[in-house]
């Protein structure tokens, strides 16, 4: 410790002597002389805190106060513990003073706050990208870390240079023991950033929520994922947020976003659920016999292949096989198949500021589900859904604009019919009041403004059946969100009745619209 102190003292003395010897040949300005300029030498001033930068900048034009200068130098050393600062003042011909903070790095290796700086670096390795992809300069500089004690500053700078050379990658650094006692190895791990992947894992609307008209429900996914593969068991309890039916069940989703290449992936989902039908739905079905009826257990299998043309643009295609068992009281009726061919186009783009916190983010999807007898389906229909959302962030504020529209031709089973009036669409309305059996046409738009944890929204939309009256409904309200926790209070606007719908719960999804993706 004594040696360390002596070395630090020595560095400081060298600086002071340099300053003093230079000053001896120049005139020392008197206390109170007007400061013409103040600068920092030997250190990038922009690395200091804004407050300290400002205080140093404000010295110009003020009377020379050496105590204040000493305080500023002390603040600089506190902010940059590996540096020492000496003050140099000189007098100009007009009698004004010039102030320079001479800053120098302390060479004592033990002053590096990382205790591992006493160990010798044996090897430096970059994992995750081939050596040939690293520029020769950087490769050479990486090797300069070897054979001497760890310089954490230099290692940090190399971190930054790797980030510059591989902007679409995340860089992490790991240091571990080498074989020889007192020696260490440094490894930089370079992995493709999530946002830069060609294919993304499909979002799922995981939630546990309460709707004042529809009650409690939950869809709880448990993510088990590696870099390219995800297995997602999902349990649903009494959820009525996305379909006409209230259902409970479970399922599992398996996804890979790399099949030999980053551009090709697959998606497989199996699920089984037992719906419960609300009274308004059963009554409406009785009045509308042209709509396919209620069913018992619903079991689905959905295998898809996905291909990315660009990181922003991908397509998916496959089939959805669904078996609908009859209700318990209709056991003589055979189960029905609702098999569809699925095609989908996805777009996602983000830009502005940093990749991890983009200023703008836009997404869009167009999905077609086609039920046809050639797939042994008992239902013949086409279902189109287009949806898009855009997010703009600045500071603590955020605007989210989303829209979707859908159309069904033919007789689609109830789980395919569109609904609005849940925790994300027409907030303030109840889907069982709007259309208790859903509709075959739908559009919905929503604008949300978030500031800190508070959110205001306006929703507009309509769901109807072909040939019936299309009524556009509006709602507005406010909410509170923090991470997955949310609460909203929505009010329908164009209605004679004053009412409010309260929703609260947890939501683990990043999708802003409520339509299922495939």
């Amino acid at each position, binding site marked *: 410790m004594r040696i360390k102190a002596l070395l630090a003292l020595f560095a400081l003395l060298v600086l002071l002597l340099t300053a003093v010897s230079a000053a001896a040949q120049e005139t020392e300005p008197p206390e109170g002389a007007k400061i013409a300029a103040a600068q920092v030498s030997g250190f990038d001033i922009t690395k200091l805190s804004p407050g300290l930068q400002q205080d140093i900048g404000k010295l110009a034009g003020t009377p020379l106060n050496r105590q204040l200068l000493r305080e500023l130098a002390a603040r600089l050393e506190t902010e940059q513990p590996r540096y020492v600062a000496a003050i140099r003042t000189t007098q100009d011909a007009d009698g004004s003073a010039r102030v320079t903070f001479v800053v120098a790095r302390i060479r004592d290796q033990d002053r590096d706050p990382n205790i591992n700086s006493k160990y010798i670096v044996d090897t430096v390795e970059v994992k995750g990208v081939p050596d040939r992809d690293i520029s020769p300069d950087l490769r050479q500089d990486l090797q300069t870390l070897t054979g001497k004690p760890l310089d954490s500053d230099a290692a940090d700078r190399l*971190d930054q240079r790797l980030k510059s050379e591989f902007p679409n990658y995340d860089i992490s650094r790991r240091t571990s023991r080498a074989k020889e006692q007192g020696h260490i190895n440094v490894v930089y791990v370079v992995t493709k950033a999530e946002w830069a992947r060609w294919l993304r*894992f499909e979002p799922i609307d995981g939630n546990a929520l309460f709707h004042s008209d529809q009650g409690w429900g939950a869809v709880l996914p448990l993510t088990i994922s590696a870099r390219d593969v995800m297995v997602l068991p999902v349990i649903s309890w009494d959820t009525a947020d996305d379909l006409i039916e209230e259902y409970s069940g479970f399922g599992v989703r398996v996804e890979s976003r790399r099949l030999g290449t980053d551009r090709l992936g697959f998606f497989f989902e199996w699920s089984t659920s037992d719906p419960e039908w609300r009274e308004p739905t059963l009554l409406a079905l009785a009045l509308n016999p042209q709509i396919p009826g209620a069913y018992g257990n619903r079991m689905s299998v959905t295998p898809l292949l996905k291909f990315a043309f660009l990181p922003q643009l991908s397509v998916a295609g496959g089939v959805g096989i669904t078996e609908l068992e009859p209700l318990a009281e209709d056991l003589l009726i055979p189960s029905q198949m609702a098999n569809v061919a699925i095609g989908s186009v996805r777009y996602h783009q983000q830009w502005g500021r940093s990749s991890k916190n983009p200023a703008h983010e836009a997404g869009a999807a167009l999905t077609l589900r086609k039920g046809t007898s050639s797939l042994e389906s008992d239902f013949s229909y086409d279902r189109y859904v287009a949806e898009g959302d855009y997010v703009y962030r600045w500071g603590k504020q955020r605007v989210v604009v989303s829209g979707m529209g859908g159309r069904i031709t033919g007789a689609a089973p109830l789980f395919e019919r569109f609904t609005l009036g849940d925790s994300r669409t027409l907030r303030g309305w109840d889907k069982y009041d709007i259309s208790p059996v859903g509709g075959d046409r739908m559009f919905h738009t929503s604008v949300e403004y978030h500031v800190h944890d508070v959110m205001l929204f306006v929703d507009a939309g309509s769901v109807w059946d072909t040939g019936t009256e299309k009524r556009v409904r509006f709602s507005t309200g406010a909410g509170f969100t923090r991470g997955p926790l949310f609460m909203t209070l929505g009010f329908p606007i164009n209605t004679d009745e004053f009412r409010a719908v309260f929703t609260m719960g947890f939501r683990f999804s990043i999708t802003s619209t409520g339509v299922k993706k495939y």
Partner: protein
Amino acid sequence: MALAFTGSLAVPLEPQNVSIARANNNEALAVHAPNLGFIKGEPLVRLKDGRSVRVDLDLMVLPGPGGTAVARARQTFVLSYDLWEERFAVTQAGTPPRSASYLTANAAEAWCLEHLTIPITEMGKLRDAPFWIRLEYRILDGNNTAERDDAGGLTLKGLIDALSRRPKESGPTHAVEAGPFRLRS
């Protein structure tokens, strides 16, 4: 409920066994919080990867629970983990920087608290009155782990990250309040 969440910027810690003591020849107030536990989770992983972690500790003397600070001390400490000794080292930023090494995690945390004191003269009237202590810590260094996966899903880490108010780069502020205390004359 909403007000309760918006009113608090810090993640409250579990009730701590916080006690106070006089330090620096009875001229300063120090605290002991043996279960503070800031060397854990992501910072601990980072430390065991041989990297350093900066932590900001903020000690405040309050006239009552949730009150405005009458006196405070803030210090930045740099932690690192000796890969060969398998012990922690701490450096207190400042002039001259002070440091200690070959410490267990608990000892490293205790060392930080030992060097975070408030001069008793700054406590004003609370020198002779009951007061509360608020102790906050914030991990300043970000982590370099990959971003969160796109998929929704219930993961404990995701839940903790999501509930944390501040972005990962600066880390949430954790806080504990304890009291009332009174200085013995």
